[in-house]
C-alpha cells in the first residue's frame, strides 16, 4: 500500500479541539507525525499591554476553559509574590479547594474522552455523568459551571459557608462511591487493556529529555508534582505524587484515575483544617521586576513568566502551558503505532490546544 498522508484534525469527531497532525501512514502504521498549530491562537499574552493587572485575571482564566481556575491561581500567586502581598490563610485554603475541584472535573472529563477515543461510549457517558456533580458544586459555590472566577489579587472573591462545606463533603462521598464502581471496568476489562496497554510508551529518560510534564511524566515513573512546591495551602496538606511505572497510555489513565482520589483526600484535609478569618487583603500599587511562577495543572506544570515595570500594565506575560511541553513527547510516541491507536495516544497526554496556543 502506498504512503497516505492523513490529516488528523483540525476538525475531528474524537477531539473537541482543533489539533492538527499530518500523519504519514503506511499499512496503517504511522511513519511520521508532524503537529500543526495556529487554529486557536489568539495571542492573548499580548493583551497584558492593554488590560491592567486586575483585568488580566479574567484573560488568563480564558487561556483554557478546563483549567481556568488554576491559571488564575498561578497568575495571582506570581504577582503577589512580586509585590510581597501576604494572602490570608483562609484564602489560601479556599484557593486549594477550588483548584482541586477543578482538577477533578478536568480528569473526569478526560477519562470520558479517553474512553470515547477507543470506542467505549457507555463509559464516556458514565464519567461525564459523575462530572456533572462537580460542576454543580462549582455552580453553587462560585456561580459558574466551568469558568470559575474566584481569584483576585490578594485573596478570593467568594467564601464557603459551613453548609456549603458539609454539602461538598457529602457530594464527594457520592463521587467516590461512583468512581469505585467503575474501577473494575477500567482496569480489568479485556478490550480496554488490549487498546491501551503498551500503546505510546515513553521511558522516564525520554520523558525528561523531551520535557514532558504532569501525568505523562509521572506515568513514566518520575515522582514530580509542582504541588510539592507548596504554593497555596499545599504546604500544610499531606500528599504523595501518584506515579506509575509502565509509561504507556494505560499507566497515564491509572495516574489520572488515582489522582481523583488524591484530590478528594486533599479537599477533605483542607476542609478539616480551614481557618477562620478574612478572605482577601487590599492590594495597593503595581508590581515591578521579573518573576516566574509554577503550579500543577491537571495536565501538568504550568509556567508563568512576568516582567513588570511598576505601571498598571505588565510588560510581558509569558505562559508555557503543560500541553505545549508534552507535544514533542507526543510526536515521538506517535511514530510507529497503528492508525487505530492514534486517537488513544493523542488523548493520553490530555491535549488542551487552546492552552498550547493561547
Amino acid at each position, binding site marked *: 500500500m502506498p504512503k497516505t498522508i492523513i490529516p488528523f484534525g483540525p476538525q475531528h469527531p*474524537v477531539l473537541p*479541539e*482543533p489539533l492538527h497532525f499530518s500523519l504519514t501512514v503506511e499499512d496503517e502504521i504511522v511513519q511520521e507525525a508532524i503537529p500543526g498549530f*495556529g487554529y486557536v491562537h489568539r495571542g492573548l499574552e*499580548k493583551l497584558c499591554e492593554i488590560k491592567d493587572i486586575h483585568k488580566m485575571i479574567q484573560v488568563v482564566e480564558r487561556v*483554557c476553559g478546563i483549567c481556568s481556575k488554576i491559571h488564575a491561581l498561578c497568575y495571582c500567586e506570581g504577582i503577589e509574590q512580586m509585590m510581597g502581598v501576604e494572602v490570608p490563610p483562609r484564602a489560601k485554603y479556599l484557593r486549594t479547594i477550588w483548584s482541586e475541584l477543578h482538577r477533578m472535573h478536568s480528569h473526569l472529563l478526560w477519562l470520558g474522552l479517553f474512553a470515547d477515543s477507543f470506542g467505549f461510549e457507555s463509559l*464516556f457517558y458514565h464519567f461525564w455523568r459523575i462530572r456533572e456533580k462537580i460542576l454543580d458544586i462549582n455552580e453553587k459555590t462560585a456561580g459558574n459551571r466551568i469558568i470559575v472566577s474566584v481569584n483576585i489579587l490578594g485573596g478570593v472573591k467568594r467564601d464557603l459557608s459551613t453548609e456549603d462545606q458539609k454539602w461538598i463533603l457529602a457530594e464527594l462521598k457520592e463521587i467516590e462511591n461512583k468512581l469505585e464502581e467503575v474501577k473494575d471496568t477500567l482496569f480489568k476489562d479485556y478490550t480496554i487493556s488490549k487498546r491501551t496497554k503498551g500503546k505510546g510508551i515513553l521511558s522516564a529518560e525520554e520523558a525528561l529529555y523531551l520535557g514532558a510534564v504532569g501525568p505523562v511524566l509521572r506515568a513514566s515513573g518520575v515522582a514530580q508534582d509542582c504541588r510539592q512546591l507548596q504554593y497555596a495551602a499545599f504546604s500544610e496538606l499531606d500528599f504523595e505524587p501518584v506515579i506509575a511505572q509502565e509509561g504507556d497510555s494505560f499507566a497515564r489513565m491509572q495516574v489520572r484515575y488515582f489522582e481523583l482520589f488524591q484530590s478528594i483526600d486533599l479537599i477533605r484535609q483542607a476542609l478539616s483544617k480551614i481557618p477562620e478569618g478574612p478572605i482577601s487583603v487590599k492590594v495597593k500599587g503595581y508590581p515591578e521586576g521579573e518573576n516566574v511562577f509554577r503550579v500543577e495543572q491537571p495536565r501538568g506544570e504550568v509556567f508563568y513568566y512576568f516582567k513588570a515595570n511598576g505601571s498598571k500594565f505588565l510588560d510581558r506575560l509569558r505562559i508555557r502551558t503543560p500541553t505545549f511541553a508534552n507535544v514533542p513527547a507526543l510526536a515521538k510516541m506517535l511514530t510507529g503505532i497503528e492508525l487505530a491507536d492514534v486517537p488513544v495516544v493523542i488523548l493520553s497526554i490530555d491535549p488542551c490546544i487552546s492552552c498550547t496556543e493561547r
Partner: protein
Amino acid sequence: MKFIKRLLLTGIKKSPWLLHFDCGSCNGCDIETLAVLTPVYDAERFGVINVGNPKHADIFLVTGTVNRKNQEILNNLYLQIPEPKVILAVGTCALSGGIFAEAPNVIGGVDKIIPVDIYIPGCPPKPEAILEGVLKSVELLEDKVKNGKI
C-alpha cells in the same frame, strides 16, 4: 420532485444532526456543547447527533473567535454542509470576539466569515441555553423548508 423533497424534509425537525467546530475558543463552550449530549441533558432525546462530518450535518455549531488560520477552515466546513442548514454561534467569543476581541491574532466573531442564524451568548453559555438554541435552530430549519428555500 421538489414537492417530494419538501415532503420528506418535513421530518427534519425530528432529526437535526449537528456538526461542532471549535474555531479558537477556550474550550469552555466546547465542553459545554459536549455536555449537552451526555446523560444529564441528553440532546439525543430530540434526535440530535454529533456527526463530526460536515457532509452529514444540518446544524453547524461554531464556538470561539475566528483567527487568521482557521477562517479558511471555517468557510470550507460551511460550504461542505448540504442545504438546508443553520449556523449557530455559541459563546461570547463566537459572537463578537469577546474578551479576545483586541488580541493581535483575532479577526472577530464568526459572522465576519459566514452568515450566522442564531447567537447564543454566555461565557460559556449553560448547556440549557445551548440546547434551547439547537431547538430554536430546528424551528428555523423547518421554516426554511416551508418557505421553499432548499
